[in-house]
């Protein structure tokens, strides 16, 4: 990972005996790290191989039996078409995109106010936002379901995506505001003062100065939020009630409860769920790690 600086320089032992000990130590290190690499790779690789093996092979031998290696795309075809994973993939996109864009916009606006607009109780309000960081999503479940059911039954929020979009957005706010505000206050005051002296309104300062120069921070947060929603099961479990709108996480949970031992389907389904996060991870690793470390150690 490029963000993680280069190795520390080790000192060279001076005596021959010291060198032997050092070499031994180094081989212990290599073996240990190799083992760690295996433990963290093999489970995922095993499932990947399984997702390309025919059902009959899977039942006959383990995936590690390389003499039984016939590869096929049938599992993916079956899970995408017959098991509705294609629809679920589209549903996940429909849930994740608005649930990323909405919080990005709303957090950026609020973070600007908390960093560059003067108003009373600003610090106190911001501390309340910090306190909100940890409120578990569970607090929203019962009230939002019953209130939307009893007060606005015609809207049927949980039939569509509105409930899940808004819930994801609301619970993303404390973290997003916190993160972006911490970035915005590091911008040079002179830059903002100068624009104001030229007569720019707050919204102009926000949209033409603060947002453009903060793209890396906003991108890091956007990637984090997108993957968070993409990977979410719990919110979808509660706030998406129409089975034709289930995202992939729920579709896989259904697959497991119906075909718990049909590994050709489960493996292919799990990889369809993982493919987008893995692409994001490998292509945008730096932003991804930054978003995750969020206001991290310098």
């Amino acid at each position, binding site marked *: 990972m490029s963000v*993680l600086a280069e190795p*520390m320089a080790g*000192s060279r032992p001076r005596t021959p005996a010291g060198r032997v000990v050092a070499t031994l130590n180094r081989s212990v*290190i290599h073996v240990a*790290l190799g083992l760690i*690499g295996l433990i*963290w790779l*093999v*489970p*995922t690789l095993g*499932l990947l191989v*399984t997702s390309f093996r025919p059902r009959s092979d899977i039942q006959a031998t*383990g995936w*590690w039996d390389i003499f039984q290696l016939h590869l096929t795309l049938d599992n993916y075809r079956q899970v995408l078409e017959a098991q509705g994973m294609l629809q679920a993939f589209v549903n996940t996109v429909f849930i994740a995109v608005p649930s990323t864009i909405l919080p990005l916009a*709303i957090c950026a*606006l*609020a973070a600007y*106010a908390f960093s560059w*607009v*003067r*108003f009373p109780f*600003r*610090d106190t309000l*911001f*501390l309340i936002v910090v306190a*909100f*960081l*940890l409120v*578990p*999503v569970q*607090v*929203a479940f*019962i009230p*939002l379901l019953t209130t939307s059911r*009893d007060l606005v039954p015609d809207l049927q929020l949980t039939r569509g995506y509105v409930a899940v979009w*808004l819930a994801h*957005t609301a619970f993303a706010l404390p973290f997003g505001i916190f993160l972006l505000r*911490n970035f915005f*206050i*590091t911008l040079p005051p002179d830059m903002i*003062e100068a624009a104001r002296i030229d007569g720019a309104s707050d*919204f102009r300062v926000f949209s033409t100065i603060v947002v453009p120069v903060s793209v890396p921070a906003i991108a890091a947060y956007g990637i984090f939020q997108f993957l968070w929603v*993409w*990977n*979410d*099961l719990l919110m979808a*479990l509660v706030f998406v009630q129409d089975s034709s709108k289930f995202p992939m996480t729920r579709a*896989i949970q259904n697959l*497991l409860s119906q075909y718990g031992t049909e590994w050709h389907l489960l*493996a292919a*389904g*799990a990889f369809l769920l*993982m493919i987008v*996060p*893995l692409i994001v*991870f490998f292509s945008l690793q730096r932003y991804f*790690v930054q978003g995750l*470390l969020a206001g991290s*150690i*310098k």
Partner: protein
Amino acid sequence: MGIAPTPGIPQAIPARAGLSAVRSARGPEKPNYLGAILFLLPAAVLLLVFLLYPAIYTLLLSFNRGRNGVFSEWVGLDNYARLFSDPDFINFTTFPPSGALWNNVLWIVFYTSIVIFLGLIIAVVAARVRYESIIKAIVFIPMAISATALAVIWKFVYSPDANIGLINAILGNFGLGPVAWLGDEHIVNFALIAVGIWGSVGFATVILSAAVKSIPAEVIESARVEGANERQIFFRMILPMVSLPISVLGVTLVVNVIKLFDLIYIMTAGGPGKASRVIAFVMYQQAFQAGQYGYGAAVVVVMLVLLIPIMVFNVRRFRTGAVT
């Protein structure tokens, strides 16, 4: 956690980010009420409607029978009394204790300590080889994927069928097993915790690696020149310097555990029997499967109460502004 990174705890707040920094960030001299309201309105509305109002509603509902999720009959502390006398929630009469809350305790003790331990070891050891970035990327991959996918991967690895499950296949080669990792009530929690650890070590590694590297190389170098051995360097120099990141990381992991749901729901659905249930799972089950809304609300309040000390910790840390 794959097991999701908690978007809960600021990992470390740069010194400039404290409130003292706000004062130096000048706005126009006069308060700008209109500007503040316009910029904050969308966030404020959503936070009030989706966070504050539900939190108060849930708190009140926990003192109510809560039939159908609406206020029906006030019952005082009845829900809490039932909760804490429910042996499936917490049971101290056996040894070791059992119940969902106890399972969270097991998670906190084993998951948190082992994740930090492994994360620190990998961070320190990997720093001494050239392929450091590759090792860190490999260990970090589970952070990108969802707990649902993590659960499928490990149900696969744990499968009792020796043609499917790698672990039982290996044991089978030595004439052992098969072990029902997820089907034995004495093993299941540890099998699940192992998955949680696998999912979170990358997170710990990346954070602690950054912390270890913030120690100037010359300092460590000069200690080596003065004859300090690697063990002394680790315990006397590295460990004290990373103690703050470790405490922040520990808090993050504890929050993960209190909110833990997806992994349990997919891998075991709380089973076998009720052996692997955790509090967030009890909440879901009581409210949405058993229709016990008041009781479910009481579980949410328990979660909140467990999180409040951490919220205070966060706000305190933030007010003083400086974490170095």
